[in-house]
């Protein structure tokens, strides 16, 4: 059964050292949960950006919570480069596994389908491939003249996290057309969700909206966290606070600036892993 619980206990479901899947910047990013994880602080995460990262991953990296990071890119969008990610790569303080967007989707879809790998076009001749000892370029295994192709091994996240506008009491969660959240949840061993609100309605009852629902049996636990994406946006609920994102980008340009920003963001508390 899906559990409805407070954020505090929900946060405990992301153990130190897990492989954590995080949705892309523009979609359903659980910023309040991320800040709570940093506050704890969570340690030694292996983070998979699905497929790109933004402020959430930059903060986790800056706070020293991340051991390895797999992503097709990390950036703050219109606010520019992700400063702590950039610094961590340049200083070599995280192990970065560069990927490309469809390869992340493919790796999750392999788990979704219960197969150990899936093929993906393109990629051949890139240094992305050259630096991935887990990916494999093979001659057409059908022997049908299709040429070489790259096989992407499955990636099974231990925990997937996201924030949604609404869940019902059965644990069904609205995702709308952000179906990469479905693939992420299908692939992950556990999926932990924060939502704006819990509704007493049955989200599956109406065929008109059921298509946008991730069924409860993929969801481990849900916490009600209003405004849980802020300062990022949540579709149909609130827009991204561009001033706040720019302020973060400026503050996080230096290690000291980041630390004082985070101390303020976490309510002056402790909890930066590097301390």
């Amino acid at each position, binding site marked *: 059964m899906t559990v409805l619980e407070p954020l505090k206990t929900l946060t405990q479901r992301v153990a130190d050292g897990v492989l954590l899947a995080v949705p892309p910047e523009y979609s359903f990013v659980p910023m309040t949960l991320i800040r709570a994880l940093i506050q704890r602080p969570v340690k030694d995460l292996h983070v998979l950006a699905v497929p790109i990262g933004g402020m959430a991953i930059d903060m986790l990296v800056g706070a020293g919570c991340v051991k390895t990071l797999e992503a*097709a890119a990390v950036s703050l969008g219109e606010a520019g480069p992700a400063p702590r990610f950039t610094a961590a*790569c340049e200083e070599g303080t995280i192990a970065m596994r560069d990927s490309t967007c469809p390869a992340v*989707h493919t790796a999750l879809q392999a788990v979704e389908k219960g197969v150990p790998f899936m093929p993906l076009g393109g990629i051949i*001749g890139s*240094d992305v491939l050259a630096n991935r000892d887990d990916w494999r370029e093979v001659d057409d295994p059908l022997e049908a003249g299709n040429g070489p192709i790259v096989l992407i091994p499955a990636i099974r996240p231990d925990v997937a996290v996201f924030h949604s506008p609404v869940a019902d009491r059965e644990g069904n969660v609205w995702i709308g*057309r952000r*179906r990469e959240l479905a693939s992420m949840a299908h692939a992950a061993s556990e999926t932990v969700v924060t939502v704006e609100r819990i509704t007493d309605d049955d989200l599956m009852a109406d065929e008109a909206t059921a298509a946008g629902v991730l069924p409860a049996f993929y969801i481990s636990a849900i916490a009600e966290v209003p405004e849980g994406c802020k300062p990022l946006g949540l579709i149909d609920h609130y827009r991204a606070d561009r001033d706040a994102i720019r302020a973060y980008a400026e503050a996080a340009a230096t290690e000291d600036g980041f630390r004082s920003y985070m101390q303020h963001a976490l309510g002056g508390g402790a909890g930066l892993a590097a301390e």
Partner: protein
Amino acid sequence: MTASLDEFLVCVIARLLDDPAVRHVAVGAASPIPGCAALLVREITSSRVRVSIIHGNANNPFTDGGCELFDCAGQGRIDAFFLGGAQIDGGANLNLVGTGAYPNIDKRFPGSFGSTFMYFMVPKMILFRLEHTRRVFVPRVDFVSAPGTSAPDVYRPGGPKVLLTELCLMSFDATTRRFRLETVHPGHSLEEVRDNTGFDFEVPKRVPETPAAEPDRLDILRTKIAGEIAKTYPAFASRVFDTSEA
């Protein structure tokens, strides 16, 4: 009406897209100028050309999640797309990852995004990089996010066709694996292009000037497209078209 550089470039790209073979243009992350050009072409072709802007909801027709853009490209349903690069070399190899000896990066960029796949799949791949310097246009990229050309046995229906910068428009020939200078923008010269390009490229006997922005298109851009692009790129629209932000 004088076009700003942004507006001028929008009109150059619009001409590249106003082509019967282009039925569906997709525009990826952080690409406001290509986005404007695509919307402009949709407008002047009475929606014969479909436009899909990946980020945000406006003009985003996708309903199958983050993989749908890439799936569409793999299906051959995307005719034109845009890529840039922190470094681009004379073989049209792109580097979106960083400079230095990877993984010991000197300067890190965001990452390859979908370039490693899209560059192979989309027939009319338009390289768009505003900054035209030897820092960007290097003899050989430090990291190949996506290669400009591939061996004949590699499935590759797509690849680079043109390169547009603040100085000029070049075309790319996958057979010779070289860029060719097509036009130089008004106010700039062949010498300026040569001085600022770190790789060798073909130069025809006569290099025309890039045509100016068409006044009628510029008018449509300012009246109809400005508001539309603001839905996806508010900061850009505010700067270029002085739209008030929502």
